[in-house]
């Protein structure tokens, strides 16, 4: 049985991770709005808590594979803010020296092994990371995040079947935000829940309200424990909302008004704050956490702004182990 309570330190941890994601997202959006940044950015507004609670159930050296919409996952996993901001800004101080950008953040020290821009492609790769752990017996778990839309692509299917066949220590975290680009869930599949798919591979599958911090954390923790115990993979379908469209600035008039209203009512941030208050955290403590985070965001933005642009020689580096001749 999955737990239904949570300890206070863990809750504080989840709150901090959530707000780190939220404040970073807000910072990115403000940099974009003011023209200080001019890149494509897939905002994570609405999905902060899902990743915060999920990553709080992992260890720092567990592996993570995520997507273009992955800043919440990366930040919650622990990627330091300075190189993250610089990477998004395309600077040398970025995690990937500016070569990857927001769609391809990589940071092995915090376990972030791949961020992919191709829908569904992360799942097979996650299996491989998990396979290495299985063979080594290093006890690591791999988590791979993807959207609801990704569950209709071939790679999802092949990876799910293989993971279960080999009982790999991998967790498939489907962040079901009800849309894939402009297409609503009911317009891309006829099943009600992605959990049905887990059954098609004999895999354990659970559906959870991704905005319920306690449930989200405990469900993930249970899956992590199973994986570490060698009992195989789990699919978690975390229900959430994509509150600001597909990418920042994109029109989302195709969303019906009922959906927009429902979405607004389900904002995870006020709900989490209420949960914290219910758990006897003081307003002052919560505000202090946010204030500290905001200072970190300002520092990261500053770091990124001051980091130099990569020079053209970078194009010849990292294509192969040996540098390409000029």
């Amino acid at each position, binding site marked *: 049985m999955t737990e239904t309570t949570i300890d206070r330190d863990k809750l504080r941890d989840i709150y901090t991770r959530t707000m780190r994601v939220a404040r970073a997202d807000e910072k990115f959006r403000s940099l974009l709005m003011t023209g200080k940044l*001019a*890149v*494509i950015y897939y905002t994570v507004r609405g999905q902060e808590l899902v990743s915060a609670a999920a990553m709080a159930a992992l260890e720092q050296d567990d592996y993570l594979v995520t997507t273009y919409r992955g800043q919440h996952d990366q930040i919650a996993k622990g990627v330091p803010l300075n190189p993250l901001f610089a990477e998004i800004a*395309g*600077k040398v101080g*970025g995690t990937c020296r*500016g*070569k*990857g*950008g*927001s*769609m*391809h953040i990589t940071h092995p020290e915090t376990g972030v092994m791949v961020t*992919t*821009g*191709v*829908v*569904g492609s992360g799942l097979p790769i996650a299996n491989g990371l998990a396979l290495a752990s299985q063979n080594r017996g290093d006890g690591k778990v791999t988590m791979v995040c993807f959207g609801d*839309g*990704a569950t*209709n*692509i*071939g*790679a999802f299917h092949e990876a799910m079947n293989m993971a279960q066949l080999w009982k790999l220590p991998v967790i498939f975290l489907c962040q079901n935000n009800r849309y*894939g*680009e*402009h*297409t609503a869930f009911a*317009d*891309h*599949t006829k099943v009600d829940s992605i959990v049905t798919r887990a059954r098609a591979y004999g895999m354990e599958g659970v559906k959870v309200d991704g905005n319920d911090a306690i449930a989200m954390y405990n469900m993930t923790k249970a899956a992590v424990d199973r994986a570490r115990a060698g009992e195989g993979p789990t699919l978690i379908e975390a229900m959430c909302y994509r509150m600001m469209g597909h990418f920042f600035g994109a*029109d989302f*008039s*195709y969303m019906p008004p009922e959906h927009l209203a429902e979405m607004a009512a389900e904002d995870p941030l006020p709900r989490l704050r209420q949960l914290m208050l219910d758990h006897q955290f003081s307003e002052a403590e919560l505000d202090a956490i946010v204030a500290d985070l905001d200072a970190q965001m300002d520092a990261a933005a500053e770091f990124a702004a001051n980091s130099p*642009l*990569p*020079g*053209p020689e*970078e*194009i*010849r580096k*990292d*294509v192969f182990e040996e540098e*390409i001749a000029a």
Partner: protein
Amino acid sequence: MSAQITMTQAINRAIDEAMAEDEGVILLGEDVAAKQGGGVFKISSGLTEKYGEKRIRATPISEQAIVGACVGAALAGFRPIAEIMLMNFVTVAMDQIVNHAAKLRFMSGGQTNVPLVIRTTTGVGVGFGGQHSDMLEAWFAHVAGLKIVTPSNAADAQGLMRAAIACNDPVIFIENILCYGLKSDDPGPGHIVPLGKAAVTREGSDCSIITYGRTVLDALEIAGKLSEEGISVEVIDLRTIAPYDEATVTASVQKTGRAVVLHEAVKQYGTGAEIASRLNEKLFGKLKAPVTRIGGAFSAVPMANALEQAWIPNKDAIADAVRSAVNWKG
């Protein structure tokens, strides 16, 4: 001043005209229907309203199923159009394109054929990074059975799209994101540009630049600049990579004696290699300078704007290649 039309409008119009004429013309792709806003680049805007959701079908994210369904419908006599949102995503549909669409006519001994258009878009300079910017036309050109279209302007896009839909073989139709907003004089309804005919976009006598797609614009700009230096550049816009208009290209280079082949795709093993090889075969001993190839750098497309700009075929380097050819001393 005559009316203008953007490439987006031009492609939309061509599809619209073809759909009005033939019930068998359908469009499948992610987000293409009205409910989703008519496609992420708005190419199918307004078409669902006219032709309904049975003909404009928004699909799940399932490129193999998209192309495969279009192959099947084509076998049944339809003329489907598949939209692959960005060219890099053809990598998940290569089996359907290469093993099936391209080969079914041959393997069936001509009993079936696949009148299918696969529309896709790409382009470097948009800041989309390593997995969303590749130009992969050389892969398709290596496969017998496929035709490949790469318009450089709105009027051609309209006319080539009509020809592609009318074609009884599968066509890969490559649009460049940065060209969608380009305007041409409105060619009017019913405009058709036949496949396999290159355009001599600018005449010249000293050197030919052979190119296609967005880099046609670069070539024209450079030709303008070089004319001030007294260098007369001929610009050939291939318009279709396959069929390749060997007659037009060879004649141009025979005249100028010099050629620069230019494309946005990675230079190594790109279409420029085939074109340069053919020129060398056809005009051995008649060329006044070696054929030069210019293409994207040999790396993934970097995301940082500074690097992306360094990756793209550089206008100065193109101009220098022409100058070197003209001044070639051996």
